[in-house]
């Protein structure tokens, strides 16, 4: 198998001259806001570490905490259901709705419901489903897919949205954001009040208290979870956290990372008081298996803030749809191979420059580049690389571990690159590379010769092999494994917190 399909997606995205503009504008603003919000909080780094610890601890004790949540939620009169995969999750939701005779559903934005394609299934089975988050509403009536995990309609500008409203809702064309929002509010207000059921996701589930935590700015989630007589939260099992105390740090970093706000307009912590019927459908869909992996379990600590998308130079250029996955950007590239179950998903870890901008901003300190590298490793180990690629790397390793051979080939290479028309602008045979970047003409003497010439000391080891990226990456993996192990055995948060 090759990367051709993914490459084709990306090629198309890059060829579209209008595609990057809305992304660049939005992500640049989001980056600046996030940085300012993080800088404003004096103990941001401490809160970030606590948030990361809380999420790691939760994944370490996943099964126990899920059970604890179930007990608490049930004690408060709710019902918890378990779904092993997307199909089971969808049929559970349909069963709950059918049993209560619910026909119309208002939906709060939930990436998990995108992951399991819940809307499509409900609509195909005859339910009336209305997305209520403004961005998600726009995307739904346009018949498109979200392009960002926190800003679904990021790819559309106001002219697009004005046209979509005009065509699909039959209203007069307007491109004024206030008017557009008003149209959506009026329409959806009625639906909130008439709906038989509300379906939401969740940002966190608090194991001890059985509370569901939901964050938002619009108030549509408050409406979906309190107005209809039936509320169903469809939630990935990994969203559980041990304690209410964990919310302090998590709430301190999540909105700051997502939008640069200190807190979003509404933070709902749903307890016993609520609609008469409350259900939580806990979805596994590959998560428990991922939780078994000593290193990749870290992926599950993600709190879906979207900061890594905003930071990513690749996401910004190719947009959210090129990932062909519910989750885009760096975190999408990590989740792809685990939740999509398609060949395409396996290729997603290659949609990165491994520059590390994502892990720098991640509020729960996920080492995204390292995890992407692990996914690439798995891709290769499971036969992902074609013969040509394997041969190339085999040759590379032979050359790189033989200093004499390396020097000989380097000399030949330098000679070729210095040749007429190889690098020179315009006529370059390496045009694909030199069109976008400057490639300097190599010097005629190697660094090692120059070094010797100037009387520098030499060793017999090849300096290039000495500290290659591969070796550093290996060390980083070991270090991370140690710190993961250390964080599990952390004192202080000690025994009383164990479920």
């Amino acid at each position: 198998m090759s990367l051709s399909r993914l490459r084709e997606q990306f090629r198309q995205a890059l060829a579209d001259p209008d595609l990057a503009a809305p992304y660049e504008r939005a992500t640049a603003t989001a980056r600046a806001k996030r940085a300012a919000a993080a800088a404003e909080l004096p103990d941001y780094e401490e809160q970030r570490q606590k948030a990361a610890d809380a999420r790691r601890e939760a994944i370490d004790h996943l099964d126990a905490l899920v059970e604890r949540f179930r007990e608490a939620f049930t004690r408060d009169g709710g019902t918890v259901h378990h779904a092993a995969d997307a199909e089971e999750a969808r049929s559970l939701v349909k069963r709950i709705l059918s049993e209560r005779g619910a026909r119309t559903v208002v939906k709060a934005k939930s990436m998990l419901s995108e992951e399991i394609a819940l809307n499509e299934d409900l609509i195909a089975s005859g339910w009336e489903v209305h997305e209520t988050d403004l961005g998600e509403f726009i995307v739904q009536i346009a018949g498109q897919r979200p392009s960002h995990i926190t800003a679904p309609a990021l790819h559309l500008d106001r002219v697009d949205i004005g046209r979509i409203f005009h065509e699909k809702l039959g209203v007069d064309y307007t491109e004024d954001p206030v008017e557009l929002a008003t149209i959506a509010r009026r329409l959806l207000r009625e639906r909130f009040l008439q709906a038989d059921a509300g379906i939401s996701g969740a940002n966190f589930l608090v194991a001890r208290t059985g509370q569901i935590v939901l964050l938002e700015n619009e108030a549509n989630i408050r409406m979906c979870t309190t107005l209809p007589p039936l509320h169903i939260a469809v939630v990935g099992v990994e969203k559980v956290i041990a304690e209410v105390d964990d919310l302090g740090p998590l709430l301190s970093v999540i909105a700051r990372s997502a939008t640069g706000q200190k807190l979003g307009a509404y933070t709902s912590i749903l307890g016993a008081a609520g609609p008469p019927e409350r259900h939580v459908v806990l979805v596994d869909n590959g998560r428990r298996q991922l939780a078994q992996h000593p290193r990749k379990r870290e992926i599950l600590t993600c709190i879906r803030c979207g900061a890594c998308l905003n930071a990513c130079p690749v996401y910004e250029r190719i947009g959210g749809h090129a990932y062909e996955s519910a989750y885009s950007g760096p975190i999408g590239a990590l989740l792809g191979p685990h939740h999509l179950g398609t060949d395409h998903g396996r290729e997603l870890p290659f949609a990165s420059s491994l520059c590390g901008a994502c892990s720098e901003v991640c509020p729960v300190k996920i080492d995204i580049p390292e995890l992407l590298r692990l996914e690439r490793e798995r891709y290769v180990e499971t036969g992902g690389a074609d013969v040509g690629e394997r041969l190339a790397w085999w040759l590379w390793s032979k050359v790189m571990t033989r200093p004499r051979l390396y020097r000989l080939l380097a000399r030949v290479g330098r000679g070729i690159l210095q040749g007429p028309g190889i690098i020179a602008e315009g006529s370059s045979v390496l045009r694909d590379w030199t069109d976008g970047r400057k490639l300097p003409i190599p010097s005629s003497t190697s660094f090692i010769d120059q070094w010797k010439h100037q009387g520098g000391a030499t060793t017999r080891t090849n300096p290039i092999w000495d500290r290659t990226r591969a070796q550093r990456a290996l060390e980083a993996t070991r270090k991370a494994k140690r710190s993961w192990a250390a964080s599990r055995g952390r004192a202080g948060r000690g025994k009383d917190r164990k479920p």
Partner: protein
Amino acid sequence: MNPVERFVAEMQPLLQGGDGAHGAIHRCATAEEAGRDILALAEELSMKRLVVAARRELDAVAAILTEEGSKQGLRIDRDRMPATKGTGLDDTFRDAADYAAFDAGVGGADVLVAESATIGLVAGAHEARALSLLPPVHIVVAPVSRMVERIHDALARLIPSPPGEHDPGIENAGEGSPTITFITGPSRTADIEKILVLPAHGPSHLYVWLVDRL
């Protein structure tokens, strides 16, 4: 800056929409003062119907609004205490759709968070679920004594461990795990070109009175 000043300073930018102010924050000494200010606001915005939350501490405010309000053609409804404590609201809550017909909901706060200008409500009643959600204007009258520094402090106050032992100051908490709503500014969205629009689905305006003695 003390926590109350911080709260006021943090609240200001939250009330700014692209099209002007979406509320205001005031400090005053007594419930009576707050009541009179609300009457003036109602007159200015030509409000016809207000609903006041079922909190005993709002009795004084409700009394002034009812007495004086009738002179300016203002009708005041007092929210009912929930029929059943704790668990879900009964069927009458379906009438909560009516809340959208009020010009404003007047409620309180169980905690105030200085660092983010956040108002915390513990809900067993209609207050968090309808009064602060459906009318276009949300008015909060709360004692400054409920001010805490950070969201961490607010959580510790509202969700005690072990559960069930609520701060005696919190009315309507009900049984079981509390349902809590933290409100930080009016409803907003930036889903169209990242341009800030107030409101999205919830209240468009938020007016807060921090009262020295309530």
